[in-house]
C-alpha cells in the first residue's frame, strides 16, 4: 500500500463514523509511536498485506463505543458485546476498504482486543498514530508497517 492508499483507509474510517452516527470525527496532529503502545479500552486490528505488510487499527474508549452503539440504537454495555461491537465496526471498515481497493490488496479478518496491553502487533514496530476526536471522545487510528 502506498501512503495514498493508507490515507484512503483513514478516510474510510472517518466516513464510517460520519455516516453511521451523523457526527464527523476531527483529525488531530499525528505522532510516530516508538515504544509503549497507546491503546484505549477497545481496539480492532486489521492486518494488511501486499506491497506493504502491517496493521491498521482503531482504538477507542469504552464511553465512545457506548455512544457509537447508542447512535445505532443499541443500549447494551456487556464487555463481550462491546468487544463484538468493535469487531463489527472494523469488519464494516474492512469490507468498505475491500470494495475500494479490490482484490489486489489482501486484508485479513479483524482481530479485536479489550484492554491497554493486548495487541497482536510487536512493540518493536513503529506506529503512525493519528488521534481524532469524535464528539467529546478521543480515539486513535493507528498504522503499523513493516519497513
Amino acid at each position, binding site marked *: 500500500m502506498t501512503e495514498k492508499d493508507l490515507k484512503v483507509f483513514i478516510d474510510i474510517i472517518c466516513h464510517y463514523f460520519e455516516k453511521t452516527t451523523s457526527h464527523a470525527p476531527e483529525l488531530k496532529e*499525528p*505522532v*510516530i509511536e516508538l*515504544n509503549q503502545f497507546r491503546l484505549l479500552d477497545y481496539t480492532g486490528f486489521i492486518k494488511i498485506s501486499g506491497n506493504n505488510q502491517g496493521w491498521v487499527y482503531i482504538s477507542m474508549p469504552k464511553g465512545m463505543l457506548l455512544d457509537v452503539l447508542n447512535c445505532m440504537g443499541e443500549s447494551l454495555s456487556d464487555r463481550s458485546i462491546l468487544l463484538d461491537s468493535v469487531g463489527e465496526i472494523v469488519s464494516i471498515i474492512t469490507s468498505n476498504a475491500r470494495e475500494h481497493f479490490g482484490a489486489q490488496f489482501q486484508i485479513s479478518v479483524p482481530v479485536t482486543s479489550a484492554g491497554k496491553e493486548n495487541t497482536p502487533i510487536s512493540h518493536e514496530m513503529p506506529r503512525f498514530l*493519528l488521534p481524532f476526536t469524535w464528539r467529546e471522545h478521543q480515539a486513535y487510528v493507528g*498504522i503499523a508497517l513493516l519497513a
Partner: protein
Amino acid sequence: MITLHDGLERASQFDELAATLQLRRYEWAFLLALDGRTSAREIGKSLGLDDTTVLTMADFFLEQQLIVARSYTLSEYTRLFNVKNEMAPASAAVTSNGSLAPARTGASSISFSLKRKPTTASTPAPTTGPSLKLKPIMDFVIRHSGGGTTGQIAAYRVLLKIPRPLLQAMKIESINFIDDNFELPNQEAYHAIVEGIKSVLNVTYQPA
C-alpha cells in the same frame, strides 16, 4: 582505535572536560557506566545501544580525550578476568600486596595496545555536519509527498528506514511532527533518513 571488546575508563581530565560538555542522555549514561573492566559492547548492550552506535560514540569520546582504552598488566588481566596463566610461574600472576595496580601504572611499561596520537585540542570540538533537527527533514518529506495526512504517512514510511536498533536507542516514546526541537541521535540516523527519502519518494533531500 577502540574495539567493542575494550574495557574503557574515563580519562584523568574527564571531570574538567565534562564540565563544559553538552551530551545526549544515552551518551552521559555510557560515559558514567565505564569502569575499566566491562567491555564497551556489554555496556552498550545494557543501555540498549547497538554496536555501531557504541563504536561511533566511543571513538568520538576517545578523540576528545574523554576516555581511554584500559591496558592491563598480565597480573591484572589474569585477576580481573579470572584467567589462568599456566605457562608463567605462580608468583607472576599476583602482585606483592595482593591488590590491583591502578591503570597504566603497573610494574611493567610494556603494553600491546595501540596508542593513539593525542589530539592537540584541550576541549571537545563541536561536531560538524548537517543539522540533526528532524522537523526540517519531515517538512521536506511532507512537502514532496502531497502534504496533509498523506505527507505525514510518507514521513512515517521514511522513518521506518532508520535501522530498528538505532530507533530503539533513541529511547523516546514518540515523535511529534510539529516538535521543533527534536534532534536525531547521530549522523548515522540522519544518513538513514536521507537514504529513506530517496527510496520512498525518489528525491534527494536538500537541507533548506
